């Protein structure tokens, strides 16, 4: 279905490559090139061409050598110099490259090619304003001469302003260009007309920036809004006037994009009727080449201008040509039954009639002006709401379309067998009719609209009855019953027709998910009956076999999917989950013989079933009485998925489930391997990587490469720079680096794409790309990876050679033999890492829900993997807490708020709450490097003052607490909030569970103690001032609180681990990830920072003591008090770290019956035996399942071992 680009294209589209630029240059007329080139152009060409060839084939070294040789002959040649700069830049010598370019541009070059190549180097270094300056100088130098080259240089100046997003200057330059192009008419590559449009677009971008500034209250960057105050209305009117004049002058509109921008500007001003006239008139005809497109647009604009009957008529005309057009079908129903439109909003006052806004993707221009303004609704009059006559008419219209489709599908080339495995079923050289489910699904849609209207009417009647305190007729509920039954009937009839299509359940998802409990059960039963009928028919068909069996199987699968979307069956006991999974996996087994020979990359006929079976097992895990008891069900699910991917190695849903399970069970490398198997890259690092890759890699320490954990997986694509093998944090670093690069590269390249769109007259794309650039720059993922990259350096940096010897030697003594993750970095290393990190995380740009864009594709998450409130680092821990709170259920995917397309940015309250929590979590992480730096006594260089940083951390916590105080489930942990520190640190010493919130509160406690100690130590280690008694008391108290909190949390985790281990002995000792994640985070983060903090305080205090001793003074009591408290804290935290080691040792030892851990293979075998005894499906305990489980067991042990080593290193570092 899909083809790869030509290899050369990959080079071209790498965006910053030389090839792109040479390619562009080759397309320019030769006479445009002005150069100070040598007399013998042929000889010169012979020197230069091989340099281009070497650069094109990425032979940087060879290119540089050739440049060197060429420069011996042409020592002053600018072109060769910039080619050399390109070679230097590409071979990583960015500084030298910039030097060479600076030398060249100091001579004010005017050669297009030289400028273009110089710009590549400057752009790669982010020197956008220098590019602008360079082109402006060249353009100024050429201006007096005029002509084509002057025009070309001005054109490039415009491009430079596009890169810098300076809309005001763009407008000025475009105006000059349009005049100049008119004067060289016929010679300019771009017409004066197009430059005229550039002016318009530049004005519209200013209008857009002004509107956004007003909406967000954030000032626009320089050059984006007009310098003289000019409201958006005026800017829009100005743009409209210019477009009208331009169109009148040219007698046409340049094309689709010009027309659509014009329409957008009219709609933004509420002039829908004018837009309709424009499209209906000659200008519309001149711009739209496809009649169907124009008809569609006229229909939408008729609706927007309030002429619903006309819109309906046009839509029906369009639908007769293309009955499957869902956007048109939806709009048609909106127009025929305006009261039932999804966009209906009801006025708050009863006198305010409800309004609705006709919607259609044709007029939704991303980044457009209409999008920025509040929607203009059309009033819905009561008789239009959902009258019986209107419903009957709509029904008839749809039925007519259904008949039309049926007729088309019966015409000469018959439909392929629905169950056909090949995508191109159907014969002959030509096309067969596409399956057009639209009108049939629209009948379901209509039934649902009617039911919703009836339910709303009944609710309104009930309210009225209540308020009148009189006895109502009560007839409403009967109507609802009828309308609901009609929905069920419509769904069933759709199922009868399309139940064997893979998309059937997906098509019906939004409808069945809205049904009430009673209706859901009735529908599920009826589907069961239908599916049975199909099976009976298939077996009656006898030997005609394959196709009929496949069709009947598809119907069964579809029925099972719909049942799941209905939230059924409601499982109440773990055993029911096991039974259901068996039933589904058995059915899956029957599919295998029917698809022999199917390419492993294709979707199989029943590939949805393992996901449903896994979901049933995860419900069982959710129902289990303890975290430990949940593990076997998760192992069974892991086994079943592993068994399924043996046949379908690229099944995305299965891989994602495997990755999630591996993450939850402390196997981060396996989790990453499953995700990389899906070859996720580029934009997917934002939409998928941040949630599915970063979560395991941040939660767990890990070592080695992907292939270690999953032998059947290919290692992730290697980066162009190559990776240092053996780096124990390779996976996390890779994920963070690649994700960062996605955003950094786009920040670099976006301007080029926008400029290209200008060049091709694609004005809607200019607006769209501008919005896209903003969306990526504000990505939540970017905030997360920026914070986590900084934190990874602070928490997990391996000992950096230099730095305070004390800690590294003790870490070594603790047996950190692999020279990396387990060792506690030296104080100096942590300090410099935290300062560097803080410098990149400007506290003025702290992430907030309103400033971030949420691009995660949450729809890939199964029902049992709700998008948690914690950030990625604590998401594993949070999942286990949700499980314990009874919030994990595998059924009802269609009812999950995150299942909808684009749900992360949905307006629903659940989505809004998720965004708020994610932003708060990201902001917390954003502040941590500042806190660490402050705790270690660093300041300046963008580091926020520790007091301020701490206040902000608390502020974020308080916001969270306000939120969770409305949430009954967390009420228990707030019980003792009497601490003077306020809510943020309240009650940690006596808290009863470790969750993401407790860990955040521990941060507040830790940096609170750090602040108190720092207050005593004064600024810097040179402080000679006496330590105040009150400060010392406060510091001692804060340290005491820290110790109490840490010991409490560690003891909670240790108890949980011990209890889990006792249970886990029965299945080979596989532990639940909850308590493990708690220990992992405590050790890797809090204790790993506390250790260098304490070391740094001790060394300052030691210096103070030395000074006092030298000057013959005694230590004052307060200072001594503090020294004692810090020493005691070190001992206590070391003891806590040792407790972690002991708890993990005991858990892994105790998990095995004999006290010694079983080998992984034996442990996995024991787990399989346990699963068999529990009665799990054969797939869960198959050979491939068993080997996957063995790898999982093995990796959990490695993870535990790494946490233990880290904990031992912390303990050793803290003891003298």
């Amino acid at each position, binding site marked *: *279905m*899909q*083809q*790869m*680009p*030509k*290899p050369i*294209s990959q080079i*071209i*589209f790498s965006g910053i490559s030389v090839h792109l630029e040479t390619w562009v240059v080759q397309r320019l007329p030769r006479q445009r090139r002005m150069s100070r080139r040598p007399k013998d152009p042929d000889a010169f060409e012979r020197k230069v061409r091989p340099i281009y060839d070497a650069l094109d084939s990425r032979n940087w070294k060879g290119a540089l050598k050739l440049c060197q040789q060429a420069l011996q002959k042409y020592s002053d040649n600018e072109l060769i110099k910039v080619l050399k700069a390109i070679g230097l830049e590409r071979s990583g010598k960015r500084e030298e490259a910039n030097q060479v370019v600076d030398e060249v541009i100091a001579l004010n070059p005017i050669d297009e090619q030289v400028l273009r190549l110089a710009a590549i180097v400057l752009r790669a270094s982010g020197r956008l304003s220098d590019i602008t300056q360079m082109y402006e100088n060249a353009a100024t130098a050429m201006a007096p001469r005029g002509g084509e080259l002057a025009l070309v240089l001005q054109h490039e100046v415009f491009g430079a302003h596009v890169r810098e997003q300076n809309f005001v200057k763009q407008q000025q330059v475009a105006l000059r260009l349009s005049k100049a192009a008119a004067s060289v008419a016929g010679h300019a590559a771009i017409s004066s007309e197009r430059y005229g449009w550039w002016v318009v677009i530049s004005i519209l971008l200013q209008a857009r920036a002004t509107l956004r500034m007003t909406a967000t209250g954030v000032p626009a960057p320089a050059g984006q809004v007009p310098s003289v105050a000019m409201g958006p209305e005026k800017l829009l009117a100005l743009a409209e006037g210019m477009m009208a004049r331009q169109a009148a002058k040219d007698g046409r509109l340049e094309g689709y994009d010009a027309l659509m921008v014009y329409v957008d500007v009219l709609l933004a001003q509420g002039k829908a009727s004018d837009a309709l006239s424009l499209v209906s008139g000659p200008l519309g005809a001149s711009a739209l080449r*496809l009649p169907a497109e124009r008809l569609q647009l006229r229909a939408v604009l008729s609706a927007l201008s309030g002429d619903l009957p006309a819109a309906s008529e046009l839509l029906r005309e369009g639908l007769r040509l293309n009955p499957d*057009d*869902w*956007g048109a*079908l939806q709009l048609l129903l909106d127009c025929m039954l305006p009261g039932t439109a999804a966009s209906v909003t009801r006025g708050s006052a009863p006198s305010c009639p409800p309004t609705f806004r006709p919607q259609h*993707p044709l007029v939704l221009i991303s980044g457009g002006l209409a999008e920025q303004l509040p929607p203009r609704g059309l009033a819905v009059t009561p008789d239009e709401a959902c009258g019986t006559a209107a419903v009957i008419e709509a029904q008839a219209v749809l039925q007519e379309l259904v008949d039309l489709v049926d007729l088309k599908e019966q015409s000469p080339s018959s439909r*392929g067998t629905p169950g*056909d495995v*090949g*995508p*191109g*079923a159907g014969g*002959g050289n030509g096309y*067969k009719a*596409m*399956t057009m*489910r*639209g009108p049939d*699904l629209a009948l379901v849609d209509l039934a649902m609209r009617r039911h919703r209207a009836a339910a709303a009417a009944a609710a309104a009647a009930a309210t009225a009855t209540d308020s009148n305190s009189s006895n109502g007729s009560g007839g409403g509920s009967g109507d609802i019953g009828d309308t609901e039954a009609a929905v069920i009937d419509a769904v069933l009839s759709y199922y009868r027709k399309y139940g064997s*299509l*893979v*998309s059937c359940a*997906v098509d019906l998802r*939004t409808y069945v998910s809205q049904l009430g409990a009673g209706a859901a059960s009735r529908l599920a039963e009826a589907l069961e009956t239908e599916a049975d009928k199909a099976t009976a028919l298939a077996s009656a068909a006898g030997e005609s076999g394959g196709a009929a069996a496949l069709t009947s199987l598809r119907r069964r699968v579809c029925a099972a999917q719909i049942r799941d979307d209905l939230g059924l069956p409601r499982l109440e006991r773990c055993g029911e989950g096991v039974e259901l999974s068996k039933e589904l996996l058995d059915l899956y087994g029957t599919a295998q013989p029917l698809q022999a020979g199917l390419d492993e990359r294709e*979707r199989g006929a029943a*590939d949805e079933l393992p996901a449903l079976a896994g979901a049933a097992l995860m419900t069982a895990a959710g129902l289990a009485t303890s975290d430990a008891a949940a593990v076997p069900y998760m192992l069974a699910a892991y086994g079943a998925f592993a068994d399924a991917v043996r046949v379908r190695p*690229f099944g*995305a849903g299965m891989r994602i489930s495997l990755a999630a399970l591996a993450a939850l069970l402390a196997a981060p490398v396996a989790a990453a391997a499953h995700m990389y198997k*899906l070859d996720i890259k*580029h*934009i*997917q690092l934002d*939409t*998928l990587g941040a949630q599915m890759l970063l979560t395991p890699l941040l939660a767990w320490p890990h070592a080695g490469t992907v292939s270690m954990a999953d032998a059947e997986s290919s290692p992730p694509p290697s980066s162009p720079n190559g990776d240092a093998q053996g780096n124990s944090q390779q996976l996390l670093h890779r994920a963070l680096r690649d994700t960062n690069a996605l955003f950094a*590269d786009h920040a670099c*390249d976006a301007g080029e*794409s926008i400029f*290209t769109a200008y*060049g091709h007259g*694609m004005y*809607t794309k200019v607006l769209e*790309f501008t919005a*896209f650039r903003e*969306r990526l720059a504000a990505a939540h993922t970017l905030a997360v990876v920026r914070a986590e990259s900084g934190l990874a350096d602070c928490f997990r940096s391996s000992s950096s050679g230099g730095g305070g010897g004390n800690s590294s030697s003790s870490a070594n003594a603790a047996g950190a033999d692999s020279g990396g993750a387990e060792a506690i970095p030296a104080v100096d290393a942590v300090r410099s890492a935290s300062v560097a990190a803080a410098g990149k995380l400007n506290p003025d740009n702290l992430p907030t829900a309103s400033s971030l864009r949420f*691009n995660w*594709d949450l*729809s890939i998450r199964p029902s049992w993997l709700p998008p948690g409130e914690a950030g990625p680092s604590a998401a594993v821990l949070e999942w286990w807490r949700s499980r314990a709170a009874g919030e994990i259920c595998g059924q009802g995917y269609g009812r999950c708020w995150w299942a*909808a*397309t*684009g749900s992360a940015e949905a307006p629903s309250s659940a989505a809004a709450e998720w965004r708020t929590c994610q932003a708060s979590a990201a902001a917390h992480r954003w502040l941590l490097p500042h806190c660490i730096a402050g705790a270690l006594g660093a300041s300046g260089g963008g580091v926020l003052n520790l007091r301020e940083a701490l206040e902000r951390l608390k502020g974020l916590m308080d916001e969270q607490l306000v939120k969770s105080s409305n949430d009954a489930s967390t009420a228990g942990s707030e019980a003792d909030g009497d601490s003077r520190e306020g809510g943020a640190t309240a009650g940690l010493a006596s808290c009863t569970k470790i969750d993401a919130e407790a860990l955040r509160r521990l941060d507040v406690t830790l940096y609170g103690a750090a602040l108190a100690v720092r207050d005593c130590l004064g600024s810097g280690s040179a402080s000679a001032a006496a330590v105040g008694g009150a400060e010392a008391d406060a510091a001692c108290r804060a340290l005491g609180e820290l110790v109490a909190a840490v010991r409490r949390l560690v003891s909670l985790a240790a108890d949980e681990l011990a209890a889990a281990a006792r249970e886990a002995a029965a299945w080979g000792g596989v532990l639940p990830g909850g308590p493990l994640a708690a220990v992992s985070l405590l050790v890797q983060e809090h204790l790993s920072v506390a250790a260098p903090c304490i070391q740094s305080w001790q060394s300052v205090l030691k210096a103070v003591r030395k000074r006092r001793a030298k000057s013959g003074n005694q230590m004052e009591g307060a200072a001594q008090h503090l020294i004692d408290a810090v020493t005691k804290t070190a001992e206590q935290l070391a003891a806590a770290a040792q407790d972690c080691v002991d708890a993990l040792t005991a858990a892994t030892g105790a998990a095995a019956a004999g006290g010694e851990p079983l080998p992984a293979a034996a442990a996995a075998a024991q787990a399989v035996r346990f699963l068999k005894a529990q009665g799990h499906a054969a797939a869960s305990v198959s050979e491939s399942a068993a080997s996957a489980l063995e790898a999982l067991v093995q990796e959990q042990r490695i993870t535990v071992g790494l946490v233990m080593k880290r904990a031992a290193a912390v303990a050793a570092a803290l003891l003298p």
Partner: protein
Amino acid sequence: MTTLRRFTCNDLFTYNNVNLDILTETYNLPFYLTYLAKWPEYCLMAEGPGKQAMGYILGKAEGDGDLWHGHVTAVTVAPDFRRQSLAQKLMQILEEISEKVHDCFFVDLFVRKSNAVAINMYRKFGYIIYRTVVGYYSGDEDAYDMRKALPRDVDKRSTIPLKRPIKPEELEWE
């Protein structure tokens, strides 16, 4: 029920149900943006009833003289929406745009020699194997260059198969 509309940047955030299919390549951002900036009429998204991506096509028009043609760069359908002739519908539209908007002589596409399912499908749509491009896919696999003549190529000269396999560097366009 399909809404056919132009592909937009925002689709990149929600197209995973299509692109998680291993046969569908996820390109870098400049790749998509270049197509959208130059040939937006050739980049179409088929959207399902829940606004989910059903499938999409990316293409372009290029070539000189009687080699002026439409090119299919990518056509793909999400596993959930296969067996409904959606790919065919998308191809049909691309051909219509090549014919009516750009007045091309033919439409061409490249396909992995090993992808028998796709090759058969294109054959059914009227495409013939015009020539083989050796080592087209990063040097490790050959491609078939498949073509279908449009009405402007009255004698169907564009689709007379070339016997000799060619190398990627011999291709007329990039």
